[in-house]
C-alpha cells in the first residue's frame, strides 16, 4: 500500500490525463478553443477540490472514527479524484461523439445542449458513485475500517467535495461552451452572473430547489 514519490506522480498524471481527456471532449462540443481550455480546467477542478478539502477530509475521518493517518487520508481522497478522472477519461470518446453530433445551439434555441449537459452530469454522477464505492472498499480492506464507518467517512468527503467542487466548477466555467454563443469567450467567468442571475454555485442550487422564476430576480446592487 506504500506509495512512493513515483506513485504519487503517477496518480497526479493519471488525474491530469483522465480529467484532461474528458475536459477536451466536453469542450469540443463547442469548438477547439473550449476543448483545450476545458482540458486544462477540468483537471484543475479535480485537483483544486482535492487540495482545498485535504485538511477537512482528515478532520472528518478522525471525527468519524477512522483510524487513518493524515497521509492515508490524503492518499484516499486523492485516489477518489484519480478514480473519477480515469473513469471520466474512459467516457471521453462518448462525450466527444455526443458533443460533435448534437443539434447546435443558435440564437433561437439551445438545440441539443441541455441534453448534452444532462448526459455529462449523469456521467459525473456515475463516475463519482463508482469511485465512492471503490474508495470505501479500499478503506475497509486496507485499513480495517468497519464498513459503516468507512461509508460514513467517504460520504462526508463526497458531500464536502460536492460543496467545494461545485463552487470551483462555477468559478472556472464555462466548460461546455454555452457562455458565449458569439464572440471570444473568457478563460473563466468567475462570479459573473448566469442567465438567471446566480453568482455562485449555491445560488444556482437555491434557484433550482425553490423553482424561482429567473424573471423575478432583481439584483440588490
Amino acid at each position, binding site marked *: 500500500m506504500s506509495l512512493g514519490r513515483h506513485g504519487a506522480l503517477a496518480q497526479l498524471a493519471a488525474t491530469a490525463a483522465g480529467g484532461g481527456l474528458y475536459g477536451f471532449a466536453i469542450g469540443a462540443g463547442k469548438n477547439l478553443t473550449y476543448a483545450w481550455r476545458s482540458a486544462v480546467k477540468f483537471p484543475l477542478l479535480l485537483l483544486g477540490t482535492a487540495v482545498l478539502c485535504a485538511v477537512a477530509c*482528515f*478532520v*472528518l475521518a*478522525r471525527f468519524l*472514527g477512522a483510524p487513518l493517518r493524515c497521509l492515508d487520508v490524503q492518499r484516499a481522497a486523492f485516489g477518489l479524484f484519480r478514480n473519477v478522472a480515469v473513469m471520466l477519461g474512459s467516457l471521453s470518446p462518448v462525450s466527444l461523439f455526443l458533443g460533435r453530433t448534437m443539434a447546435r445551439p443558435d440564437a433561437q434555441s439551445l438545440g441539443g445542449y441541455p441534453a448534452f449537459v444532462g448526459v455529462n452530469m449523469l456521467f459525473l454522477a456515475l463516475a463519482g458513485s463508482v469511485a465512492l464505492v471503490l474508495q470505501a472498499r479500499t478503506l475497509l480492506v486496507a485499513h480495517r475500517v468497519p464498513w459503516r464507518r468507512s461509508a460514513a467517512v467517504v460520504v462526508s468527503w463526497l458531500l464536502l467535495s460536492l460543496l467545494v467542487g461545485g*463552487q470551483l466548477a*462555477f468559478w472556472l466555467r464555462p466548460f461546455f461552451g454555452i457562455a458565449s454563443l458569439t464572440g471570444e469567450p473568457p478563460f473563466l467567468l468567475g462570479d459573473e452572473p448566469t442567465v438567471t442571475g446566480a453568482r455562485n454555485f449555491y*445560488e444556482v442550487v437555491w434557484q433550482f430547489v425553490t423553482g424561482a422564476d429567473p424573471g423575478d430576480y432583481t439584483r440588490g446592487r
Partner: protein
Amino acid sequence: MPTVEASAPGQPSTTSPPIPFDAPELRAVLRRPARALEVVLAERPRLAASIAAADHSWQLAGILALCTAVASLPYGFVLGAASFWKVAVLYGGSVLLCLPSLHVFGAYLGSHLQPVQNLALSLVVASVAALFTLGFAPVVWFLEATMAQGDWIDAGDASVALLAGALAAGLAQLTRCAGLDRLLLPCRSSRWVLVAWQALVVFVALRMARALDLLG
C-alpha cells in the same frame, strides 16, 4: 505510552476499559500539535476516561483550551487580520459562559463531577469545533475569493454555515464522549441536563456570533 489493544478509535474496548491519558502523553501534544487531533477527535474513549478519572484534569483542560485558541486562528485570519481572535472567542467564550450552569444543574441532578472536569467536558465542544474550522479554513478562503458579495448567498453565509457545522460537530463529540463513561452521565436526569445545556450553548453561540459580527 499506554495503549488499548483490540480497540479501534471511537469504539469502546471489549477487553479492557480505556486508559486515561497520562501526563507525558498530554505534554507530548505541546511538542507535536498534530497529536491534538488524536486526543480530541479520535481517541474518544480515552478522552472520556481522562475527564472521568480527574487525575490530570487541569492539564487536559489546558490542552483543550490551547487547541481551541490555536486551531481557530487560521479561520479567524481568513475572516480578516483584525478578526483573528473572533472564532476562538465564539467557541471558547460561549462554552465558558455556559460552564457554571452545567456544573450547578449537573450537581443538583446527580452529577458528582468537579468544576475542572466540567470545564474539560465543555472545552471538548470548543476544541472540536476549532479543529473543524482548521479544516474549513482553506475552504472558506476559497469561498471568500470566489463568491461575490451582496447576492442571495455569499461567502459570509457559507462561513456561517461552516461555523455552525463545526459547532454541531463539537456538540456531537460531547454527546458521544459523555455516553462512553458512566461517571460523566450517572443518571437519566444528567442526560437531560446535557441536552438542555447543549441547547443553551447553541443559543449563546448565536448571540456571541452576532456580538462578534460573524453573522454578516
